[in-house]
């Protein structure tokens, strides 16, 4: 398998120069690194520019409703634990409309990897504030500037007990591919929030803006992703320095392990014909 094997050939509808392209490349790269085959990979997305990504890949794809990628991914993973399930979603999709699923999917800890194209804006609907838009940013709806505190996805994920919390940058594809591969290898829910410039609607957080700030956290001399206090601090770092890399990592039993799914053949291989309810019916006699 090489990167071409993961290409669908569908026409790409993103704007030229969009940060989404880097994420697409990185994902193909990661799947090659991981040695996965298309038929055993499932990409689940909601709606948004980010959510179009699965169409551009040659993998199984469920492009569902805005905000609802995570429950679909959860159901699919439960039905077939052998699938490699990856969610590609936007900051609006995952943290806005889908916020409740985000917090509970972390608690559930199914073995899925979530890649958030975090462009800090609603791209597909033409540029309204998203949950991660910076305060003061002016849009056609937020005419006096965005007033809400940005959602802090990484700190929130740590608070909720997520076992793999990372930030990537779509301008550093190679590094990002590594994060994705590590996320997929991690047993359990893995969150990768990707800094993704939107060249059409986010005029603040541009490639140049990020390039000035982004650094690889592994290079920090104190780097210790097992230390929660350190992780909280680095997750909050958003100033003239923005770290990318695995910010927090901890081993946690997965949903599949705890419910016993892992010990059975995938649910979708159980034979229906052999089910006989006679014994349970008699319990109602």
């Amino acid at each position, binding site marked *: 398998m090489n990167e071409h094997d993961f290409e669908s050939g569908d026409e790409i509808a993103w704007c030229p120069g969009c940060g989404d392209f880097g994420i697409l490349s990185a994902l193909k790269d990661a799947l090659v690194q991981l040695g996965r085959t298309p038929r055993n990979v499932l990409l689940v997305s909601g709606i948004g520019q980010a959510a179009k990504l699965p*169409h551009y890949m040659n993998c199984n794809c469920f492009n569902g409703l805005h905000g609802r990628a995570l*429950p679909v991914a959860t159901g699919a993973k439960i039905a077939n634990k052998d699938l490699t399930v990856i969610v590609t979603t936007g900051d609006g999709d995952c943290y806005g409309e889908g916020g409740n699923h985000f917090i509970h999917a972390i608690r559930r800890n199914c073995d899925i990897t979530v890649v958030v194209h975090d462009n800090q804006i609603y791209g597909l609907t033409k540029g309204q504030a998203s949950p991660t838009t910076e305060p003061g940013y002016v849009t056609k709806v937020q005419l006096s500037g965005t007033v809400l505190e940005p959602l802090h996805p990484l700190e929130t994920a740590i608070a909720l007990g997520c076992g793999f919390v990372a930030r990537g940058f779509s301008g550093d594809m190679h590094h990002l591919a590594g994060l994705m591969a590590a996320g997929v290898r991690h047993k359990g829910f893995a969150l990768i929030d990707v800094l993704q410039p939107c060249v059409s609607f986010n005029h603040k957080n541009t490639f140049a803006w990020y390039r000035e700030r982004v650094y690889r956290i592994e290079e920090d001399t104190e780097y210790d992703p097992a230390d929660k206090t350190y992780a909280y601090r680095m997750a909050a770092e958003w100033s003239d320095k923005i770290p990318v890399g695995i910010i927090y990592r901890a081993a946690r039993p997965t949903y599949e392990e705890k419910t016993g799914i892992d010990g059975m053949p995938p649910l979708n291989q159980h034979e229906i014909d052999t089910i006989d309810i006679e014994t349970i019916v008699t319990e109602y006699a």
Partner: protein
Amino acid sequence: MEITVRIAGEAGQGIQSIGRIICRAIKRHGWNLFADQDYMSRIRGGNNSFRIRISDTPCLAPREKTDILIALNRESVAIHEGTVRKKGLIVADEATDDVTATTLRYFNVPIGALAKASGGKSLYENSVVCGVITGLLHLDPDAVVNVLKDMFGKKGEETGDKNITAFREGNRYTRDNYFSDAFHLGRRQYGDGIVINGNEAVALGAVHAGCKFYSAYPMSPSTGIMASIARFAKRFGIVVEQAEDEIAAINMVIGASYAGVRAMTGTSGGGFALMGEGVSLAAMTETPLVVVDVQRPAPATGFPTRTEQADLDLLIHAGHGEFARVIYAPGTAEEAFSLTVKAFDIAEKYQIPVFIMSDQHLADSYRNVTLPDVGALSRQRHVIPTNGQSVHPYKRYALTGSGISPRAVPSWIDDVIYADSDEHTEEGHITEDARIRTLMVQKRFTMRMNLLSKEMTPPSASSLSRTEIVLVGFGSTCGVMQEACGSVSGMNVGYIHLPQVWPFPAEEVRTLLEDAPEAKIVSFENNAAGQLARLLRRETGIACCDSILKYDGRPFTVDEVVATVKERYSSL
């Protein structure tokens, strides 16, 4: 021979367990029963009751009057006294009731004292009450003890033993102190079959149909389905997942279904109202979906633990956009079972959402039933390559001319499978093409509606020739309608029960009504708008001349319906 026993008391007094024990005992004694529950949305206090109608002929619905009222607190006497027949009996504890046993009408039992004597705990009061009822009905105490053992068996020996002692105390006290034979049932023969309620029937149907994933958010009165499936989950390798909300539940089910398992969710009206977008997703992605809606009175929170049939319109029209769906409205536990099995089959065969419309009355009411022959119910998988078909290159939404695109499961075939919520090409990629759009709408809607007209679950009806009045109903009113029709003296009243309401069985209803060209058609519904009457007119042009409607959260009783029909139509 017919007796109605009503056990009433506060929430938390264990009325439901008494009721369930007696129901199973009754069944084992060869009697028919119908037991419905009236309970409040609270955990302690208030007033709940469990009403068991017992008869030598089949029982399909409740009756108005009580023969034996078991009042577990003083308030229950005041509330339910009015329903007790002249020759009926009120059983109460001396401690809670201030009416002493001076009349034949009252039988005071020292329930609390007997329970304490048996095990030192008031916890055993329920078993004492079971003993009392066993005594009054002249049931075989040993047979009832077997029921107790079956039900308490798992709770450990000691509890079981003490319950049995308490039971025997209650029974002994009754035989020693109550001498009338008025309620003598005794044993007819050993009654086969089982005692289940509508929720359990749906759960059994789902298990039988091979449901491997049930995800739901708790909501009365649907939670019993989740709890029942959970009981059998380990044994059958089923995953039951409580979702964070109803939207998650339906989307998880869609994800699981896409990945190849049969999956289902259940809720009540308010939760269903949240699922509309998900229903639409299933339709657009052509993912099989089964949803149970156990209706309760609305709008909003309404009456969480009571009954209504007002979600008919909601279910037919839920979700944005136009697509085929099927809605079953089982009238009995048997139908609930077999239509649940059918729901999975149809959902998968046509790759559409299928709804089972139940309600609190059906869900919580127990009957003695014999499940249909399961061999006759299809459990065939409609997926490639399991069904022998195989296609390469695979197109998930192939326009085949039949209205159905072969459905494959991810990782079961070499090709990848794109499912898409946007309008899409045959391959499943986003398109904005006008021509493809038109064809896809026809596939999802028009063509499948046509196909479904050949899969109709037909209405059931009484013989309609020479009827003056025909009642038309759906869902849980089936039994009461049927019994009432047979009981209106001096008039010829028939009924049509619709176990499937969508696609509407227009042809079938028209044909049935041809037998009764002169009859007045009356819709019979547990709602205020007469939704079925409107639907009937829309789908067949047939206008009802009247509707019998009830929307106070309570089910119809046979007597009430008979009285209403006589009052309204006898002068016709």
